């Protein structure tokens, strides 16, 4: 069964003369429990696909299906219980005046959970932070700790599909290893499906089962990670990208 199906997805910004086609006729699907990577350079439209799925990029056409339900322009509240997103920059994705407790508590409240206190504690344990971080403000946390909070927030509504927008590109390599391990563990524990965007082929190679290579808004090649590791890209651009990242 497919968790996510994308058919002929076009995403654009601006109107008329200023219209920029960010994504052109993207087609791919992600199976239940799979981890799928989107790879490309900046401006290739990989993050835009995530923003279109979540509704943050409102101008799109084509078909997006999540768990067999086609999405319309407006996302119902239940949608956000299925799909959640982790942003690239942990320094920008947490409200500067909200403590960790407020961030998680509000998220749980919005999704109608009861026993919020107990759940906040559990979420913090899940992402390896623990109680003592509960009442801290973002400026009292390191980059890796912030990203853990952001992951906890995304896990709060118990989603099935997690969209990861370059979750480690703003972090040091040692912290990146911790976060990638955490994401791998969480995927196993919570039976999550990942759609991960990255410019780093080795990160995608480590985290994903299959990947799509994007260039200028188009998907030029879809391959599985075994092929990636054998450096067997067919499209010249994908080949070039592979060479550059070795």
């Amino acid at each position, binding site marked *: 069964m497919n968790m996510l199906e994308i058919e002929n997805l076009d995403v654009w910004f601006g109107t008329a003369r200023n219209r920029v086609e960010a994504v052109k006729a993207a087609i791919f699907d992600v199976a239940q429990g799979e981890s799928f990577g989107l790879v490309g350079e900046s401006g290739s439209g990989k993050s835009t696909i995530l923003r279109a799925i979540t*509704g943050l990029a409102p101008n799109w056409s084509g078909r997006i299906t999540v768990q067999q339900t086609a999405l319309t322009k407006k996302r119902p509240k239940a949608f956000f219980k299925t799909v959640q997103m982790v942003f690239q920059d942990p320094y920008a994705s947490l409200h500067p005046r909200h403590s960790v407790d407020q961030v998680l508590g509000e998220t749980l409240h919005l999704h109608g959970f009861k026993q919020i206190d107990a759940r906040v504690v559990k979420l913090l344990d899940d992402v390896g932070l623990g109680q003592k971080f509960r009442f801290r*403000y973002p400026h009292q946390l390191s980059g890796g700790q912030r990203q853990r909070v952001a992951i906890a927030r995304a896990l709060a*509504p118990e989603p099935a599909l997690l969209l990861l927008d370059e979750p480690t590109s703003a972090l040091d390599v040692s912290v990146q290893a911790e976060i990638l391990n955490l994401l791998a563990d969480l995927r196993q524990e919570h039976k999550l499906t990942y759609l991960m965007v990255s410019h780093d082929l080795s990160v995608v190679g480590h985290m994903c089962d299959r990947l799509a290579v994007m260039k200028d808004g188009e998907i030029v090649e879809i391959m599985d990670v075994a092929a990636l590791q054998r450096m067997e890209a067919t499209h010249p651009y994908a080949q070039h990208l592979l060479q550059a990242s070795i």
Partner: protein
Amino acid sequence: MAEHYLRAWLLTDTPTSRRHAKMSALYQGWLSFRSNTMAMIGLIILLLLVLIAAAAPLISPHDPFVQDLGNRLAPLGTPGHIFGTDSLGRDILSRLIYGARITLYIVALVALIAPVVGLLVGTVSGYVGGWVDVVLMRITDIFLAFPRLVLALAFVAALGAGIENAVLAISLTAWPPYARIARAETLTIRSSDYISAIQLQGAGALRIITKHIWPLCISSLIVRVTLDMAGIILAAAGLGFLGLGAQPPSPEWGAMISEGRRFILDHWWVATMPGLAIFTVSLAFNLLGDGLRDVLDPKAGE
């Protein structure tokens, strides 16, 4: 020892409860505010003003309304009347002390009305966008197009003279700049990741505006309000001076200057003393505003 323990508790990086975290954040802000000497001077002047206004009946040497025509226009340093008396023989010091109450009343009311209106209009306009933004911002432009005192004059003329109407008129003319600031802040905040993140939790516009955007706008508004306070006091004094604000015999500072104007060449202190009072309080607000900006400005933080 206990003090030392309290300080450590307040400065901790690992707060243990919601209240602890709040207190700690407040204390850190207070510490950085305290290190700004000028702002502390401003704060002390304003605290003194509040004390004086509260204790006016206790500390004023005379009744501010009692006339003594035999002793009119007594100069500075006259025994019993250290700041002299005005044209009706009333003690200027006592009138200044009671006038502090009126000044605070005006300042408090304007500070309650104008920024709140501005915040509402600005954040809604900035967050919702589209035609709501266009309509609200054009209304703001209309208000901005008039010189403040002229517009206030028109309002007071329509509503009738008096302190309450003067406050209302000043508030009505003071909100547009706040709306502009709030809108500009909202536009940058709206596109940030943490707003996207809460949108992805299904939060509605009302919650996002009140719980996520307001806390970030309020600090810059508070700074702007304290910096504007001087102008508001001056506008109130100006209306008083023109006879459209506080009515005689009320000891409003602007009205006092207006009365003293007739004698300014021979009896300069009658107009100068309330002028100095206005100057001191305005300066205090400006100093305080500068200090608050250093503490509250989110861009300076991190």
